[in-house]
């Protein structure tokens, strides 16, 4: 097979052309221009001149940048533990082939299918001062809470929304992993008299550990890049005094429009890229430790 000519020399490149052209023109090339613009004072309508590291020095003195970095960082720290653990429990719940389980699996996937704009508007309405959540809390004798008026409550609400929206997505990843866990392990543990909690910590967690690492890394990248949920719940200016701005919101706000500071925004973009790449390397490492098994 190796030495038989199975195709003309140009054929592979014809197959690759649409994909390679798209990826080069709309991902790799814009990345190179971002890399270049980050060191210029370019505006939307002027190409700008080389300014060296000035954008990065400006960043260090930009209060908005530190607020945005804090928020995006907090997002990773507070969202990821939930996106790693809750979908795993959910996957265990729908793993067993019992009547109606296919329906539940698809239903739990609904928030993933809906766009982040739609779910943010739904949550915005539920968390309204006089919305569903405060209505229920009032019956229980609590609240009302200004979920969308307070700087911190707003950020926590957006985080809860992100966790909720990701449940089904990561559940499916766990389901694929759980399918490969040998049943005998559970049976042996049951024979040894292990309870549900013990079976979880002694059998399930070790068996899907690498998938947990993968989910952790994937969801930290996604959490760090958060935009839509916070943009819609907090508004384009990022909540009270802009205190709920995330890093990608700052990129969008500074870099677009007629007066966009493209140079500065590109420098911010590089920070997003660098942190995302760091978290992405975690994915690859998790993947590599999984291979030899």
């Amino acid at each position: 097979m190796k030495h038989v000519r199975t195709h003309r020399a140009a054929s592979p490149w014809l197959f690759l052309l649409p994909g390679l052209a798209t990826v080069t023109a709309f991902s790799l090339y814009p990345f190179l221009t971002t890399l270049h613009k980050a060191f210029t004072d370019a505006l939307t309508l002027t190409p700008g001149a080389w300014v060296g590291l000035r954008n990065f020095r400006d960043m260090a003195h930009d209060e908005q940048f530190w607020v945005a970095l804090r928020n995006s960082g907090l997002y990773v720290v507070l969202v990821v533990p939930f996106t790693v653990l809750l979908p795993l429990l959910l996957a265990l719940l729908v793993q067993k082939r019992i009547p109606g389980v296919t329906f539940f699996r698809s239903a739990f996937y609904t928030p993933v299918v809906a766009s982040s704009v739609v779910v943010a508007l739904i949550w915005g309405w539920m968390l309204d001062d006089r919305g569903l959540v405060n209505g229920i809390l009032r019956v229980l004798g609590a609240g009302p809470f200004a979920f969308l008026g307070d700087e911190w409550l707003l950020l926590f609400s957006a985080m809860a929304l992100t966790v909720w929206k990701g449940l089904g997505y990561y559940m499916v990843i766990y389901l694929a992993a759980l399918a490969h866990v040998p049943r005998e392990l559970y049976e042996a543990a049951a024979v040894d008299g292990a309870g549900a909690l013990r079976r979880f910590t002694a059998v399930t967690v070790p068996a899907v550990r690498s998938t947990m690492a993968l989910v952790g890394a994937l969801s930290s990248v996604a959490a760090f890049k958060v935009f839509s949920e916070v943009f819609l719940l907090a508004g384009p200016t990022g909540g009270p005094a802009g205190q709920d701005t995330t890093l990608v919101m700052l990129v969008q706000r500074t870099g677009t429009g007629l007066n966009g500071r493209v140079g500065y925004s590109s420098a911010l973009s590089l920070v997003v890229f660098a942190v995302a790449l760091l978290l992405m390397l975690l994915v690859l490492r998790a993947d590599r430790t999984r291979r030899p098994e």
Partner: protein
Amino acid sequence: MSRTTPWEKAVRYALLLAVLALTVGPFLWQLSTSLKSTTEDVYTSPPRFLPSHPTAHNYAAVADIIPVWDYALNSLKVAAASVLTNLAGASAAGFALARLRFRGRRAAGLAFVAAVLVPLESIVVAQFTMMRDLELNNTLVAVVLPGAVGALNVLLMRNAFSNLPYEIEEAAVIDGANVWQRFVRIALPSVRGTLAVVAVFSFMGAWDDFLWPLIVLSDPDRFTLTVGLNYLHGTFQQDPRLVAAGTVIAVAPLVVMFACLQRYFFRGVGEGAVKG
């Protein structure tokens, strides 16, 4: 685990129903709000879950404020185009990377890996500048182009094609089938599950995308649904019934599509097509 007691079963179903209420409940609440008439108080406490006089009035009213059906059509065009370009482009590129031997294959594969590593969020401003230079900004073509062939989809297709046994192609080569015939008649039909996953993800990605269309579209006539809903929300926040009607219009087609494709989707995912 091996024996289930009725008690265990009851607990399992109770948990399933509780999660169901948490995940699907908010959508039903939105649907209910959208069906409440303008005379009905939507702020009651305790909350009233069913509309007392269900009406489709809000759906007509939201169409008077923003051209919601035009926006839906724009979203549909973008999503359909994205599905077609991704299916064609990603399967062709994935096939070449997995099944053909040629100089430069490794470099071509690396280009796609590199593209996966560049988050969209970090290049949107550069993409916007580029579209403006090409005089494509404010068009639906500009919305589709950057995601026309997703690098991750190419890698998914490459994985799927790599897993096919070589024997099935050998026979075709001996029979004198050319590359194109092997691709269309043998390889493609063998990876239907992965194709379904790519189709679903492309459709969802395009229909749900917000950041990029928000940046590249400025003319309200050209908005996609997500950008249009953001506009509706910003301007007419005071009437939650209208926003609710708008969101139901945006989410219903996806729920229907997913309900139809979920069998193939979960099978494709189960085949290991999606590792993340």
